[in-house]
């Protein structure tokens, strides 16, 4: 058997805005042993419908199977699998950094500038900022902060995604 290549996929779901829908989707992932790397959900542009974006990892066949299983859920209206080459995928992270001394303070501020971060709250003891980008960019920034031993806390939004160009994933 040839080892099949595993890669990352983003699954975008348009679902009816009912209680328990997220539980059904998450339950399906857990029950069938699929991997969920991030999960985001909020209202969509259409009334009564929510959009859920799930980042997952697997072979092409596995992702196809997830797509089919999602389609079977009654409250799931549409399912689309996106990949980085045909879509815009972004994540937002809120990060709290501790300031130890002037030197680290300077380093932190220059790094924030390099990564196009935006400071939201700051005082002499800490900086709270936001960074928007793909997950790898956020990972890279967090790695640096970890190495500098200044990372206090992070809250990440998970991925949101849209198809590139005028095409849209949903109904019309």
């Amino acid at each position, binding site marked *: 058997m040839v080892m099949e290549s595993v890669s990352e996929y983003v699954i975008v779901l348009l679902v009816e805005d009912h209680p328990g829908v997220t*539980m059904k989707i998450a339950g399906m992932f857990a029950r069938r042993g699929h991997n969920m790397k991030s999960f985001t959900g909020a209202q969509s542009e259409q009334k009564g419908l929510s959009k859920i974006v799930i980042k997952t990892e697997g072979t092409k066949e596995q992702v196809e199977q997830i797509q089919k299983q999602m389609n*079977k859920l009654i409250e799931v209206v549409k399912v689309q699998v996106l990949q980085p080459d045909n879509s815009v995928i972004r994540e937002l992270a809120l990060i709290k950094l501790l300031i130890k001394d002037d030197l680290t303070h300077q380093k932190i501020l220059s790094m924030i500038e390099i990564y196009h971060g935006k400071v939201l709250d700051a005082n002499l003891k800490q900086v709270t900022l936001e960074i928007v980008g793909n997950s790898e960019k956020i990972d890279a920034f967090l790695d640096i902060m970890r190495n500098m031993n200044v990372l206090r806390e992070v809250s990440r939004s998970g991925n949101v995604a849209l198809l590139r160009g005028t095409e849209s994933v949903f109904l019309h």
Partner: protein
Amino acid sequence: MPFYDEIYEDPDIRSILMRHEQAAGHAAEGFAVASGKLGVVMTTSGPGATNIITALANAFYDSTPLLAFSGQVPTKLIGNDAFQEADLIGSTMAITKHNYLAKNVNDVGRIFKEAIHIATTGRPGPVFIDLPKDVQLAECSLKSPIPSKINLVGYNPVSFSNAVKRQVKIALNIISEAQYPVIIAGGGVLLANAFQELKQFVDTLRIPVVYTLKGKGVLSDDHQNVLGLIGMHGRKRANFAVSEADVVIAIGCRFSDRITGDLQKFPGQQNSKIIHIDIDAAEIGKNVPVDLPIVSDAKLALEEFNRQIQKKIKETQEFPMNSWWYKFIKELKESSGIPNVTTSGKTGKILPEKIMYELNEILEPDDIVVSEVGQNQMYCGHYLNIRKPRTWITSGGLGTMGFGFPASIGAKVAKPESEVWLVAGDGSFQMNLAELATLKQHNIKINIIILNNQYLGMVRQWQELFNEKRYAGTCLQCKNGEYWPDFVKLATAYGFKGLRINKPSEVSMALKTCRSSKESFIVEMMIEPESNALPMLPPGGALNTFISRKREKKSIYDWYRRLPRSESEIADYKVEISKEDAFSVYFEKEVTT
């Protein structure tokens, strides 16, 4: 309670109170399979509702259309751990096609309409509705409580499409080049009511048919192309045909592990091709790689097949059947019938094969056979001649012991004019035996055959074959060798008659007594304790590896040897089919209608 009060004197709704909710669920399933209609089951909240979980799971695996609803504590108390509260929405999520919690009485009509639609369309399945008590009591303020239209944006089951027509065309090309094609008929054929269409397809192309446990009966076992059950306890000739196939046409089956055996050696891996027709796209490519997927209702797909074949015949005046393979299969079938086993077993008790032989003698085409789960089920699946669709009922995917008895009650209610036979093991019968009281109360007649080997036989068989006869937890005897209950006395306790037999010579008479009884009747047949359901595939084994009795070993190897493999061998096997003969088969339907 409010719901039951409402239907108390309703002339249109017949409610049968069962003794246990699980049994009620299975009875509704039995009703659904026998009638082809929706089965309905209602329970109370909390423990009543949790008791139907097994039935819901069973219906989910077997795609049985089932509507289940239960009471729930008043909406205000939900989430407070009130008396007899249980989270049924959470509990039933993974084992239902869909579920609802009705929080507002004005939604109830819509929910029921949607639930029935979802349960019976596409790939059918169970739908569960949670009905809080206050919602049951509330007055509906809508003028028309049931909406005229169903609006489910996320649910559009595909039953047919133009893509199917294209795929069928490709499929026919693949089939026309096949030397050893085989059809696997699954439960989907039954759910789609595609019996006539399948028969026409098979009669035209004369391709051998094997079936899964849930597909038994979709084409009569007497049909010359039908080779029988495949899989772990399948007929050797059926497994042989599939393992040698170069094209497998699977219709409404999901290639469960019990069917395929070792996946690496199953067709589709090397030189053979798989054409898979299923209404559920998620089943295609799930377990085996498929060469040609056809996402369609089985009936509509087969109609399209038949239409295109007919067109081709008219155009080319050639009959597209593989005559030598048909001849080979016919000979194979004729040479491997079921022998009448007249001897008794090692300890002098009856051999199950004898019971199956005698049952086949007494069964009428309209009789319904319901099996429990275990060895009894495999004996029935393997040996019994089922001649009509919906006359064979069993628990497939979930393998629920205790399913059979209540399911037989549901079947009898659906088809009161048919004789209903329950073939049970002593283990599985005891799982829902309280329903004997239901039989008596409602005057329902079931012919109950208990194959008593004093063991949980199937597990014991595995322990014998793979665990050096360490019968852990499977012996149902007392330490002193006694066996309880006395099933004949049990029958008497519930107001019926019963009979216990020990000898092979008594089987026929016992079955006749059972049939001619006016009321339900229990026949307890003492079978050889260590009798095995053979042949079987060793777990993980390929379809052509068998564990079987010595005397049976030789037969199938002969067929392997005889199977023509080269062009010249095939040419030797070819038969001339006259055009008149061929066309009369094909156009039979057109002429008669």
